[in-house]
């Protein structure tokens, strides 16, 4: 089966020095290759600074890579002109860690979720309202929340709103960049269940970027570990957990706090 997303040798450099024209380059991505099968979840793990968020931005076509290729549904995306990329972007959506900074604090929930529909200019006002209500139902946000602003919502409700907005344009791929990390444990469980339900009812594919190995192990079919701009290990979840090979994987596993100290999945460093 053709992967939904395929990346080959992706490189992204940023200027590292203090001046914009500095010759020093920081390789945020240093030759990344991966693929995600449709309707599956790939968890991307790595320490802070390993390049996970840069990869997310490149996949979402919000940053142009320095070199390398991205294929989405078999179509090469990196070489496309901006007008063509504009047609790909709605199919790849992002949900961020901090809903407070990704939701407009002055807009109501209704306005936030219907903004993508408004920007696309394809729907009448009535259609936008109906679609928004459907989306709020999908994420189990009561319709009375539609008139509330983000600061009137709890952390979990804000994240549901962010997910509803991400679903507005019926994407195929959702990139969740630490989307659960800032939530309380009991709320993480609720949102995790919501994501699984949406995956099976809407046929979604997820790229789940996280530090949390336990949640990654719970949600993902495949795991990829990044270190210093490269993927150092990847494979089926069961394999990575049972036989972690690379040092970066082992340190992440060892560092993940566990309730059951006696559990013996971890390999001694």
């Amino acid at each position: 089966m053709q992967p939904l997303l395929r990346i080959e040798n992706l490189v992204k450099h940023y200027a590292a020095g203090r001046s914009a024209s500095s010759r020093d380059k920081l390789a945020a991505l240093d030759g990344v290759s991966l693929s995600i099968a449709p309707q599956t979840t790939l968890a991307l793990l790595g320490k802070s600074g390993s390049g996970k968020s840069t990869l997310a931005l490149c996949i979402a076509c919000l940053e142009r890579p320095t070199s390398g290729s991205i294929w989405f549904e078999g179509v090469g995306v990196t070489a496309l002109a901006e007008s063509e990329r504009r047609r790909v972007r709605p199919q790849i959506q992002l949900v961020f860690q901090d809903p407070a900074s990704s939701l407009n604090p002055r807009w109501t929930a209704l306005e936030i979720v219907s903004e993508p529909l408004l920007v696309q200019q394809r729907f009448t006002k009535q259609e936008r309202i109906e679609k928004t209500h459907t989306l709020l139902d999908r994420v189990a946000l009561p319709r009375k929340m539609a008139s509330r602003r983000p600061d009137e919502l709890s952390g979990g409700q804000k994240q549901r709103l962010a997910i509803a907005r991400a679903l507005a344009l019926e994407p195929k791929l959702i990139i969740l960049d630490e989307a659960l990390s800032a939530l309380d444990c009991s709320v993480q469980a609720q949102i995790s269940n919501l994501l699984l339900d949406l995956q099976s009812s809407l046929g979604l594919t997820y790229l789940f970027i996280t530090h949390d190995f336990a949640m990654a192990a719970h949600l993902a079919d495949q795991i990829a570990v990044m270190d210093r701009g490269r993927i150092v290990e990847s494979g089926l979840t069961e394999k990575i957990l049972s036989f972690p090979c690379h040092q970066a994987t082992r340190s992440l596993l060892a560092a993940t706090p566990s309730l059951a100290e006696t559990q013996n999945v971890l390999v001694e460093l």
Partner: protein
Amino acid sequence: MTPILEVQNLHVAYFAPTGQLCPALAGVHFDLAPGEILGVLGESGSGKSTLAASLLRLLPSNGKIQQGKVLFDGINLLEASPQNLRKIRGGRISLIVQEPSSSLHPTLQVGRQVSDALAAHKPLDRSTLREKTGQLLSTVFPADAERISRSYPHELSGGQRQRVLIAQAIACRPSLVIADEPTASLDPTTQQEILLLFRTLTQKFGMAMILITHNPALLTGFADRILVLYAGRVAEIGPTATVLSSPQHPYTEALLRCLPSHFADERSVRKARLHVIAGDPPDLSLHAKGCQFEPRCTDRMEICKCDEPAGAAVSELHNVACFKFAG
């Protein structure tokens, strides 16, 4: 042994803009032994940050400590004079907050900021100050303290900034360090390094510690005891291993069941629905009668709607506020 800290029947509330009083903590009661690490486990709205602020009387202007005592080494902090309180804050009790970037001065080198923390409490001459600052930084940055000392906060990573805050917090060898979600913004590897550092410092300097977090797994192998906070009340308190392996309060039980099993290495368990706690945390401004967890509790009884359970001992060191255990 005399406790270093005794919190007795603490009640704290906030004034809403309407003038209405909204309770945040009710009847909080616990002790802390010298050198002990207490983990305060609570989710959003449980009152954990209010607790941290109340202990040092650092509540915002609309906060009110209505009742109770906070005895630190025999002094009631709630009645201490401003001058005394000033000496205690930073000098004998330190507070470390979640977001290091908002606590560090953006245009001062970090070495200077650590010196300032020292100088605020100890009258030292310049060369002693420089020497002690160097020692402090070496404690938290064994490898490159010199370079870090000359850096500005924006040049450091999240973990490094947190270490600077820790250096400031231990500068005057306090007897108690209160850390409010100190590792929340850090990745797991850095998190573990910071916890290890805390452990080393508390053992080396005999400091007691209160670590506030929403993540139960963080407290394993770290805290000596856990206090579970729900809706501003102490739901359960006991030795860490006991509370985590056999929680007695229905809330603690439900919370621990929400966590993904570590690790779901079998396909059948992976991608299964996680347990959730039905309902939402209570709106304390409604002043509901009875046990605050009752609407969400699977073990609720008639009495739970009318009265609030007092703490009952289920074993020598383990206390639970639930009518299932009332005498």
